[in-house]
């Protein structure tokens, strides 16, 4: 017990002791045993229900989109927005490029800023009322509806607030452009990145940090050498999941003026100049085509095919997150 006394603070120690005594004290009676089993089965049943709903949705969409994906996958991936669903050239290339750049913006702006903010809040910030207030606000921001972020982006990037410095954003991003969309969605996921990174940092046992301090490491050395590698799997999972969220958002993009009918520009994946031009993205195309099937039924199956492609990329990102987490966890062990 002596060694724990030094490494854990008093509150944690009391807490552990109390829960252990409690657990040992309660006798497992017959009735609570039945309840236990019952509850377990209910929870498993609920899990299956949600999995079945998900499977039905995915299978339904996959069936609807199968014709398009199997007969003309290549032209569908390289095609553009068209007026009629029967056109040969209809496809999602412009949406894929738009969503790709949104993901790049999130990776370049939201990840570093968010992780840095989390490190500051966990490791450097004094534990006072101001810090608590800031953390509370970040948590609230994570729950704000995405349309509201769309409004924020609209005023800052598209309309251009006529206030010192903020005014320059408009000319920088070029109005309702891909850059405006990328930056707005970076702001949208920033609170989520901060919170998940903070949670990952919180899981680090204080033994590790105290050990590093014990051998004379500086604060930055502790963070760089011990804290970050240990928290990396958690941070990565959280940030990559927030990226999937960003590329799935439609509402803020509608406010930012994402193009629905026709996008004149057919830019390649790495054409930087398109960042200042009008844009579209996968969720926008899906929303729009779904609405258009009222007038032209063929848009429905194209929308379904687009959903399958978007799902594929989102799952790809999530799978990457899991693989990276496993890789880092193995490395740590």
């Amino acid at each position, binding site marked *: 017990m002596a060694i724990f006394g030094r490494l854990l603070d008093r509150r944690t120690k009391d807490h552990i002791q109390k829960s252990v005594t409690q657990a040992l004290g309660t006798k497992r009676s017959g009735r609570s045993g039945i309840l236990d089993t019952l509850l377990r089965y209910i929870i498993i049943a609920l899990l299956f229900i949600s999995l079945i709903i998900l499977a039905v949705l995915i299978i339904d969409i996959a069936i609807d989109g199968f014709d398009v994906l199997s007969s003309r996958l290549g032209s569908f991936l390289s095609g553009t927005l*068209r007026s009629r669903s029967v056109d040969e050239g209809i496809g999602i290339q412009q949406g894929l490029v738009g969503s790709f750049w949104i993901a790049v913006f999130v990776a370049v702006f939201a990840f570093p800023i968010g992780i840095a903010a989390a490190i500051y809040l966990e490791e450097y910030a004094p534990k006072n009322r101001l810090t608590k207030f800031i953390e509370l606000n970040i948590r609230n921001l994570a729950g704000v509806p995405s349309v509201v972020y769309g409004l924020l982006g609209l005023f800052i990037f598209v309309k251009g607030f006529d206030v010192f410095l903020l005014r320059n954003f408009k000319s920088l991003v070029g109005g309702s452009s891909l850059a405006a969309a990328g930056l707005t969605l970076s702001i949208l996921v920033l609170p989520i990145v901060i919170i998940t990174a903070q949670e990952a940092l919180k899981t680090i046992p204080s033994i590790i940090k105290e050990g590093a301090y014990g051998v004379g490491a500086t604060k930055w050395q502790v963070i760089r050498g011990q804290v970050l590698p240990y928290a990396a799997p958690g941070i990565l999972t959280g940030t990559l999941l927030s990226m999937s969220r960003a590329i799935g958002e439609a509402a803020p993009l509608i406010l930012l003026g994402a*193009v629905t009918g*026709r996008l*004149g*520009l057919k830019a390649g994946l790495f054409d*930087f*100049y398109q960042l200042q031009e009008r844009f579209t993205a996968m969720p926008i195309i899906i929303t729009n085509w*779904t609405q258009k*099937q009222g007038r032209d039924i063929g848009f429905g199956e194209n929308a379904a095919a687009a959903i399958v492609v978007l799902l594929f990329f989102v799952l790809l990102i999530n799978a990457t997150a899991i693989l990276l987490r496993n890789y880092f966890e193995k490395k740590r062990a």
Partner: protein
Amino acid sequence: MTVAKKCRRKIFLVSIVIALVSAVAAAGCNHSGRTVNISGSSTVEPISVRVAELVEDSGSNIIVNIDGPGTGDGFKLFCEGETDISDASREIKASEVAKCRENGIDFIELQVAIDGIAVITSAKNDAVDCLSLIELYSLIGPEATGTKKWADANNLIREQGGGGNLPSADLDIFGPGEESGTFDSFVELAIEEIAEHRNQDITTRPDYNTNADDNVIIRGVQNSDTSLGWIGYAFAKEAGGIKLLSVASENSECVEPTATNIADGTYPIARPLLIYVNKAAALENEALRAYVDFYLQDEGLSIAVGDVGYVELDNIAKTKTRQAWRDGLK
């Protein structure tokens, strides 16, 4: 990890950031000389997109961006000078004209097509040839919910001062669902005025057979002798086995849905589809002029309009539109 490896990774990260920032900062690459920005009605959007596609096929390198948030939203952007053309499924309102004036935006109004809706029944139905708007409202409007026979609507029709002598036959209604543009058009043109007057929700009854596919609606109407339905006129006139009903607006005669009657505005459930062009932009922007020129040729007013399923203007109206464009540019 070696120092060199670490360095390489750092250089890679830094270069990505620099590339992004410089790309965003590069003010160049402005396509405004050959870009046309269009917003407005989602009903007109397909026509404008089709025209842009035909322009592209003709080998022109004009860049056209088109968006369809709705007529009202389109005019908001248009009167702030954000767009070059505003698509509209109604004429511009006085308040919107005032807003445009305030911002010094002068425009040219051009009618490009007509959105007409045909009320249809089975070709075997001899009992009904013509319905008034009051009868349509009483059969399909929100207050008709639960009505199973044509005659059940008679009380509601008499209450509104109509004749009320519909036959006692089963009423099988087929129409597009709420997500459809044709549904919106029908509600706006046939239901809205009476529903508003009677303080009802501006929609149809919920209990009828909906389908997004016009072919399914037509099949439904064909298969029941006492059916009633509505679809876009351009589609209905091509279909067999159905009868297009005449429609009478308040205090007027029954009007047959023919291309002429729709084009001259006597058929009540049709509306003009228009585009509004920013005059100053048109004088300045060669691409915009070329695009509208193409729009008003037969490739636009006939081919593009037909391709996406709307009613084309008659020759007199086409000439009038072309004249308005020429006069506007003077």
